[in-house]
């Protein structure tokens, strides 16, 4: 009798028990993420390692990887700079049309990538609005790596802006005030106080933009012109191989891409964790 009375009441939680929710989490992740990815691995696994290297080391595939990674990095870098600027303007200033501008940031998200690709291609084509202006300067954007970078920068922008915005909005303005009263000039306040506080979010946003750029297909194919060795990105090589019924080659390249993405994610998350360890409250 007394034993039942003294029994600790079980703590009630909003969601049903841990077992059930965890079960659904694993099931869902398996269906959506793990099973398709494993399938790719499995289908590539039957090839011998020598064949792997042979496929990956062809000049065309190597060039595609170089372009994909290089252009994605540059695009992520561009997005980091301008995304920060845009997020800053959108959170710090009050001006007519701010809401509209804010909504425009999401456009690369919302637009079907093919639409963006066509738009960019028309714009930068030698006869297009921008292409016509750039041609006399000897700059050709369409059908060059430059075009690929431009397209990738376009699709990655919202990632940086949207990860920075809430952090920037929550940033205690008193930090800047404190730095100011301590004698720091505006630039120093930004460099030593604001930027370090934004850095984790900036890294996350840029990493997201980078990952997105790495896998981007629709917006790039039109503007890139897809010239092998020059402006052909990895997803396109995979697509081409598939169209030529070279399934095993396509899968090998795909798996390599997958591993690369994983590696990138590890590096970024590691950097994030290191930053957080340093100065986020430990609870």
């Amino acid at each position, binding site marked *: 009798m007394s034993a039942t009375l003294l029994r600790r009441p079980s703590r009630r939680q909003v969601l049903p028990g841990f077992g059930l929710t965890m079960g659904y989490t694993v099931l869902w992740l398996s269906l959506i993420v793990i099973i398709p990815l494993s399938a790719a691995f499995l289908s590539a696994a039957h090839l011998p390692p020598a064949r792997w290297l042979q496929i990956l080391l062809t000049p065309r595939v190597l060039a595609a990887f170089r372009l994909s990674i290089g252009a994605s990095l540059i695009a992520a870098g561009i997005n980091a700079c301008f995304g920060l600027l845009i997020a800053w303007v959108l959170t710090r200033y009050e001006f007519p049309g701010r809401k509209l501008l804010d909504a425009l940031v999401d456009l690369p998200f919302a637009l079907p990538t093919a639409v963006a690709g066509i738009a960019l291609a028309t714009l930068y084509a030698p006869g297009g609005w921008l292409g016509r202006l750039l041609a006399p300067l000897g700059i050709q954007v369409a059908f060059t790596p430059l075009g690929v970078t431009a397209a990738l920068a376009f699709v990655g922008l919202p990632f940086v802006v949207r990860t920075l915005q809430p952090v920037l909005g929550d940033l205690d303005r008193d930090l800047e005030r*404190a730095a100011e009263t301590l004698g*720091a000039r505006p630039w120093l306040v930004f460099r030593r106080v604001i930027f370090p*506080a934004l850095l984790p979010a900036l890294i996350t946003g840029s990493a997201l933009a980078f990952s997105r750029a790495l896998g981007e297909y629709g917006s790039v194919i039109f503007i890139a012109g897809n010239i092998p060795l020059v402006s052909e990105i990895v997803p396109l090589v995979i697509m081409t191989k598939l169209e030529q019924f070279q399934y095993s080659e396509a899968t090998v390249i795909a798996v390599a891409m997958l591993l690369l993405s994983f590696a990138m994610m590890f590096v970024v998350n590691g950097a994030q964790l290191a930053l957080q360890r*340093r100065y986020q409250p430990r609870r």
Partner: protein
Amino acid sequence: MSIRIEQLSKLYQGVPVVNDVTIEIQTGEFFVLLGPSGSGKSTLLRSLAGLTTIDHGRISLHGRDVTELPARRRGVGMVFQHYALFRHMTVAENIEFALRVRRVSVAQRRRRREELLQLVALEGYDARYPSQLSGGQQQRVAVARALAHEPAVLLLDEPFGALDAKIRVELRDTVRAVQRRIGMTTVLVTHDQEEAFALADRLGVMQMGRLLETGTPEQLYRYPATRFVARFLGAANLFLGDVSGQGLRLGAATMAPERAAAPSPTGSEAVLVVRPEDIEIATSSEDLGAHEFAAGTVSALTFAGHQQHVSVQLDELSGIEPATARDAGEQSITVDALRSAADQMAIPLQPGAKVALGVRRVHALPTPISSFNLMARSDSEAAQLEQSPLLAQLVSSMQARVIRRSEPERDERLEAGICVLPLDEHSPAVIAAAVARGARRVLCIALGAAAPQRMLVQAGEGVARADLLALVSSVMRHLPIEATAVTLQHPLASRSEVVETQTALLDTRAELRSSHGLDLRSDRFLGDLPAWLNSIVAQPEPALLVLGLDGTSTLAPRLTAEFPMLFRGGGHTNLLLAFGRTP
């Protein structure tokens, strides 16, 4: 003089959030700015630090005018409510920030840091990150950081607001001790009266952007000038009493004023402040040691540790009138008293007990506006007056009583308080009648006009300057609008006349500053009184015009003849008239 703020104003959407504040703070002084939220105290502190722009005024620190200087060149140290520590820097890096900015050598930086960490009792915490410290420790780091560059003044913006009660008191003592030890001129902003008392050498109470009163905690607690300060700095019973030759009369008690300062005229109504601890409770009037002023019934007893709160409901016919607005339906008057443990032992009380009340000490507020007397011809007009933005604002911020004076009491004297009436073509007659019955202050409200945006004061003739300033300061403290003293100057005035009017104006400002701690703008109008009045009436913004006049017997025709522009009706210029004593 360490800090000197002169006529500082800051507007937000046209409304002053800091309104002509003038303060002088001595070197080494601990000055506390106290006020409810939204009173402008933080804005004032920020303008001192250079963290916000100001619309008017000058600020100087140690004799150096810093009004135009950015925060980084003012040499101030500031501590914020939520610490504002740089979270990606260690304690050492935080404290050394100001020194690194100034390119101080590593060795010197370390020496200073160690010194400061010792000062705030945090030795050995150099390598920690803020996230590894408790709230109290973080705030101590913030104090050390703010002192690193040896600032001219230390500014603290609600520094203990985010801490729990025990740490708060502890840190408060630390800050006080540090301030004493290094003799740093310090300004602290808080809304906590107890904190203000514990820390302040001198404190200033702010409300609606005005610095209402400044003084030592004891001065302000014992001799407040406004109902607001009386109540903000602790519990207070506010009654209407009389000031006469014999002293202050409250109900049955008459006592000599403790301070001869009460500038209220003799034989007049005054607002009396009685602190709960100054009320003595006894079971019969013979047992009272203090002046008996009323009798009543104990309605509630509240235990408060070392003290006991007693609420006593006064008997009807006790002759005591509250000075604050009473809620509708509230019939009886309740007095709050506070008893020590010794008193509780000597005279045990139960709710329902009949008691006699004595008063040990009373203070009369120097405001001439003890109550508002509505001189309305009908109930609807009275309601219109009460709902007018000007009167509603004054009554709510003064917490004053509005009394309707009905027609039959024709012979009633009107010396007390201020008479309020609607402004129209009948006003001159009503004003003259009121003045004949003793009224010395009349507020004519332009019904239907928006709240006035500026207050213009013209000393005029016939009124003693002290009386006019007492009235002006009382109104200024309770309206969030800019006040300006205007002198009229003849366009062809000689040089000596110009000097004379300017001197008079400066004298007025100086007197207002010294006797009321307030400041107002000054302006000069080239032309005579009617021309000036015409120019004001013609302007689109509603105004409150303060005029001093002679209360002669031919007042009504004179008002109609000289100031026809003011009594046309339908305008938006409100009128506050002060009259000299009628012979």
